[in-house]
């Protein structure tokens, strides 16, 4: 009688329970790792070889340009000319070295440059306070960063003659300073504004809902460059003759509103992912709708959309380069101005300038992405199951 027949006719009762056993040991060693991860099949192997070949071609090229053939010292473009140096020239870092102050502050008066420096330090302090999750009294950190710091920063950068700080017109601000100011205003304004717009778009009140939909769709439907030109050229035409808006503030507002429309849609995605029962349960506990949103719905919704928020912020940061087109001396524009310096006319200089800009933007965006990844892992660990 076969075993299967036995089951059918006789039934089955286990006599001893099986105790848990460890899993079979995996094949160890680096060779086994290479085989399973890089050369598991011939297509895997082909892809591995192709990627290695590309790296073997690109990495030396990049290293030669950035390091080995680079010129590190010099006082003019002469130092970066191959015929002067006597070998092919990669990056002309001497150029960046000499222009570094201009790249950082633009035309901000040299005697007052301690003010942007203090501004950077205050910003780093506030940002560090907020970004370090284990920091003490983070609520105070938020109050500092969102209320105290903007006032301080304005007084510090624009000047406050009453305090002995000479006024510095925004037209003189430039470089990294302007890029940081524009991005920070965009980031700080777009997140709360985006949350409000997202909530408004889901409001029960049609007036609010349609106003928010209209706002979001308008700003999403217009290219940023158009917004910036409108802010720069058209806005003064609409305002009464004696009222002017600062040339730096105009694109700032444009960017903040533009980014908030995108942020609103990201946040709305998160809100839609939260089951209705969460709101219902919060209301049943006696919380008001505002309390329920703040304590129950938004924390969960924002957690879901951390990748989307960071994506939007990275986009916003890179989009700030467009203000250079409407005459704001941001990092890209001062870099352009610096490389047009006839004293530094050498074939290697433009390439150096763009490589430096690429490294600069990449470092910051990659930092944001890494930090977001860290936050995501932290949040995921928070509700490990």
């Amino acid at each position, binding site marked *: 009688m076969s075993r299967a027949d036995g089951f059918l006719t006789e039934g089955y009762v286990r006599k001893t329970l099986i105790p848990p056993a460890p899993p079979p040991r995996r094949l160890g060693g680096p060779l086994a790792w290479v085989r399973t991860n890089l050369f598991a099949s011939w297509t895997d192997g082909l892809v591995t070889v192709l990627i290695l070949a590309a790296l073997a071609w690109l990495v030396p090229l990049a290293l030669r340009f950035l390091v080995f053939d680079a010129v590190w010292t010099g006082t003019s473009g002469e130092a970066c000319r191959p015929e002067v140096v006597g070998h092919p020239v990669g990056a002309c870092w001497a150029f960046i070295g000499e222009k570094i102050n201009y790249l950082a502050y633009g035309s901000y008066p040299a005697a007052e440059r301690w003010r942007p420096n203090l501004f950077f330090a205050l910003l780093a302090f506030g940002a560090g306070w907020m970004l370090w999750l284990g920091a003490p009294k983070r609520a105070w950190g938020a109050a500092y960063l969102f209320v105290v710091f903007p006032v301080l920063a304005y007084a510090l950068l624009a000047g406050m003659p009453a305090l002995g700080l000479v006024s510095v017109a925004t037209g003189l601000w430039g470089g990294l300073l302007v890029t940081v100011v524009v991005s920070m205003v965009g980031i700080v304004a777009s997140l709360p504004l985006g949350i409000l717009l997202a909530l408004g778009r889901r409001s029960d009140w049609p007036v609010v809902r349609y106003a928010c939909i209209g706002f979001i769709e308008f700003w999403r439907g217009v290219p940023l460059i158009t917004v910036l030109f409108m802010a720069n050229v058209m806005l003064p035409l609409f305002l009464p003759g004696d009222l002017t808006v600062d040339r730096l503030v105009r694109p700032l507002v444009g960017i903040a509103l533009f980014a908030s429309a995108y942020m609103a849609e990201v946040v709305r995605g998160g809100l839609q992912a939260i*089951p209705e*029962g*969460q709101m*219902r*349960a*919060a*209301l*049943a*506990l*006696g*919380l*008001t709708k505002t*309390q329920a949103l703040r*304590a*129950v719905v938004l*924390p*969960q919704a924002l*957690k879901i959309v951390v990748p989307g928020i960071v994506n939007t912020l990275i986009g916003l940061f890179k989009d700030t380069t467009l203000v250079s087109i409407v005459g704001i001396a941001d990092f890209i524009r001062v870099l352009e101005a610096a490389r047009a310096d006839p004293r530094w006319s050498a074939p290697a200089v433009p390439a150096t300038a763009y490589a430096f800009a690429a490294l600069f933007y990449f470092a910051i965006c990659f930092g944001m992405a890494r930090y977001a990844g860290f936050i995501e892992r932290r949040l995921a660990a*928070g*509700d*490990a*199951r």
Partner: protein
Amino acid sequence: MTDTPAQNTPAVEFAGVDAWFGTTHVLRDIDLTVARSETLVICGPSGSGKSTLIRAINGLVAHQSGTIRVAGFTLDGSAKATDAVRARVGMVFQQFNLFPHLTVLENCTLAPLHVRRLGLNAARDLAMGHLARVQLADKADRRPAELSGGQQQRVAIARALCLEPEVMLFDEPTSALDPEMVQEVLDTLTELAGAGTTLLCVTHEMGFARAVADRVVFMDEGQIVEIAAPDAFFDRPRHPRTQGFLSRILG
């Protein structure tokens, strides 16, 4: 049924209540008075309006005509009345609806902190007391997702109890549970009923209804079809719809 002299208003009172979802008539001429300390089981086929009925009690569902009075407050659509009622009514849902981003303890202290404005220590003590009552004090620092379904539902009960409510509403509290966890939740409900909490429970657990309920309400098509004491309800159902329903679910 109730003999607390200071609280002589009924816990819940429906008078001629009608409600619609769009054009669907979901509650039809509901008249129902629930005394203090009474345990009421509401049953009926799905879509009969049971959940809508108990959601109307704390204003999660708005009614368009008639009067609903809860603990002496008339739900007139004003935020003030709704807040007053919600602060006095605890609710437990079929899907638990615990807040997954908060610990068990934080789930329980949310309403005491935000609604009753207790201090942090008072709120914690209160929450720990009610968690102990549902035998989950040792899970206070866990996240809801780490608990079994039955444990989650008991946390939801503790969370509602932290309002120190005059009325507890249960919307099919065991329907989403694995069979082996149903009993622990029913035991908690039985304990609450025995302790004199006013309790309205939508459930298909007929054994529980027979053992614990003071009265059983049978609903169908948005209306109350029959109200009876459990023995009479199960042994001598009078309305043909009740008879049909009972014969279907009791076999």
